[in-house]
């Protein structure tokens, strides 16, 4: 099993290399360092000299891929690619165009993201499963039909409306929670309620439908019929057998998104002024801070690939057959 996982982990390397190359091409073909400098230095009294200084200070005055002025190892290392792109591999995110250390910012901002995303995932998962079970339990009745219609409707609403509407009703009209903001520690609770609620609600439609299909598939299997024939009540069948058996695919499906929770939710965070990585990314896009965007692209890819690895591990734990292969 160990060698299997090692092989999978090694497979991640070319993936990351591909991501790295792609982003490098995109970001350095797109905007020349001079453009970045001009934007960062602001609008009053900017001169060529100041731009050249800025570029030199951040190491953007180097050639892109090959430095002809240097001898061999330095001709590769004294380049924008090596210093700005390749350094991501050892998780050195460098300095943002606005002059801050990206690594420090990321390590600070991932926690609020997590504080929102983790409850949303857990509560969302349990609510989705509960409602899906209820719908299955009520199958063949008007409740199921109504529930189905409601779920399709919920699924057809843009997440923007959930956020705008939720903030308007709960924050402004009813004054139940602070409209936006965040705080550290336990104080975060009252700020997190509404975003989590909205996050759960906006994922409800598709989530419930997905789990319902899963349960219905399970319920059609032979062992359920056997169990029912043995005289188990419908509720017992549902909870003990159907839910129990469906839990494995559900949980392995969750594992893959776990690492990505750190990345946060782009729009939710910017609407609710939550200082997480999602709003960090949005701000960076708006300010065209390519250093941050580059770092986030790479981080996102790394987390996604970790998610894939975790899924592999989860499968080997659940299904012993994988271990043999």
């Amino acid at each position, binding site marked *: 099993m160990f060698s299997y996982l090692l092989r999978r982990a090694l497979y991640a390397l*070319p*993936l990351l290399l*591909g*991501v790295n190359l*792609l*982003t490098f091409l*995109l*970001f350095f*073909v*797109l*905007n020349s360092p001079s453009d970045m400098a001009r934007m960062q230095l602001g609008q009053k009294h900017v001169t060529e000299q100041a731009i050249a200084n800025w570029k030199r200070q951040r190491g953007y005055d180097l050639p892109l891929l090959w430095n002809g002025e240097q001898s061999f190892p330095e001709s590769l290392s004294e380049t924008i690619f090596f210093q700005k792109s390749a350094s991501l591999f050892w998780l050195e995110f460098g300095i943002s165009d606005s002059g801050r250390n990206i690594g420090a910012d990321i390590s600070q901002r991932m926690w609020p993201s997590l504080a929102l995303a983790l409850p949303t995932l857990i509560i969302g998962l349990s609510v989705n499963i509960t409602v899906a079970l209820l719908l299955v339990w009520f199958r063949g009745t008007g409740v199921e039909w109504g529930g189905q219609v409601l779920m*399709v*409707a919920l*699924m*057809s*609403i*843009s*997440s*923007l*409306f959930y956020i*705008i509407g939720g903030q*308007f009703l709960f924050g*402004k009209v009813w004054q139940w929670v602070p409209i936006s903001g965040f705080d550290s520690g336990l104080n975060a609770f009252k700020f997190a309620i509404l975003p989590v609620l909205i996050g759960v609600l906006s994922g409800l439609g598709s989530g419930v439908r997905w789990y319902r299909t899963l349960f*219905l598939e399970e319920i*059609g299997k032979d062992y359920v019929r056997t169990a029912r024939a043995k005289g188990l009540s419908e509720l017992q069948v549902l909870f003990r057998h159907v839910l129990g058996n469906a839990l494995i695919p559900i949980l392995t499906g969750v594992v893959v998104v776990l690492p990505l929770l750190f*990345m946060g939710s*782009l*729009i939710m965070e910017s609407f609710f002024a939550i200082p997480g990585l999602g709003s960090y*990314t*949005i701000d960076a*896009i*708006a300010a*065209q801070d390519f250093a941050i*965007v580059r770092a*986030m*692209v790479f981080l*996102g*890819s790394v987390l*996604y*690939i970790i998610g*894939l690895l975790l899924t592999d591990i989860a499968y080997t734990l659940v299904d012993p057959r994988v271990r043999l292969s």
Partner: protein
Amino acid sequence: MMVGLWTDALLWGLVLVMALGLAAARSRPELKRPFAKLAEHPSGVVALAVLLFFLSVALLDSVHYQKSGGEVLSVLDTLLTPLRDGQEKTYSAPFASQLYSSEFMETDTGEPVWGRPRLQHGGAHLSDEDHHIQDIALKLLAACGRYLGLLAIIALFVWVSWRGLQQRWRDLPALRWATWTILAQLALALVLWDVSHYYHVLGTDMVGEDVLYQTVKSIRTGWVIGALTTLIMLPLAIGFGILAGFFGGWVDDVIQYLYTTLNSIPGVLLIAAAILLVQVHMANHPENYTSLQVRADTRLLFLCLILGVTSWTGLCRLLRAETLKLREMGYVQAAFALGVKPYRILLRHILPNVMHIVIISVALDFSALVLAEAVLSYINIGVDPVTYSWGNMINGARLELAREPLVWWSLMAAFCLMFTLVLAANLFADSVRRAFDPREAEHG
């Protein structure tokens, strides 16, 4: 003079291809059953009717011509001339005859007074403000009477003159559902169109542009994003997916590497980068983008392109898995043994048998793409700011809820139409799955 925009051509081309495909599919016996199943559920039929209605609006909006003054208009613009020209100064509520907020006006004697000025177009025919409500009711009733009557007469004519229709009407419930849906939509559209000669049915926005006009114009954007993206994504997904599954080996490795790499990059960031690229290109080549339409159209096309590039991976993976399964099937193995050429096997045996996955996934992706447009426009990496789209409408209107008194109509209008389109697409996707998914068929 006709003006060709890229998205126009592609959208019409797509419709043509769809029509041809349908015509071809009609003759295939194995597709009889799914089509019959598709017609079984009212929700699917109604949804399809709604989708087609939206599509025809989008198609009308995709025929552009240049007027003598140099203005580029679409056929839909011409139909909606009263809405397009009836620009007010700023916000006005639905059916209002006055602006929504107060400002300084000059009275006849030239004295400034503080109050709500009359609109230039909405309710301009009213001589007496007191009969405002009455007039609205009257205008609505008259329009209803006129167009319901007209539709009824046409329907009667068709009913009488088309022999065999009665028989089909009785035998095909789907025909009944579809007809009622389309009639209802037509009636609604005609009544709204009629009343909009007198009033701004959904009010006006910050610069006094008719909100109804904006929402209707956004239909095209929604369809273009949903449909063209699919058009771009399908060849990639089908080609790569089937090749990877069929040939295996290094082909499979390369394709897997390609889609895992693309998949691992957060989609939004990739789109952001690509859209910035387009902006830079436009800034550096202003001579190619003199007209706003061309600019906006290029950006829209590019957005579809990049959305297509980021979204083919999911379908590709499904198709690869399915092809892997199919390859081991008896009849494929037999074809191999008989020495049939691989490309023939691919075309004859594999491709038709994975089509149900393609159809289901296309139906599902459509709604997801329409929703994605709104989110991308919120982050300013969606369609061009001058393009009419629900995303732009929401983005422009999201601050209006904070106004006091509340301005709700822009948001509401965008919500309703977007919801209708996405809901229809979702319901249709459900029916498609019911009809085409073999697993569903087993469940009965």
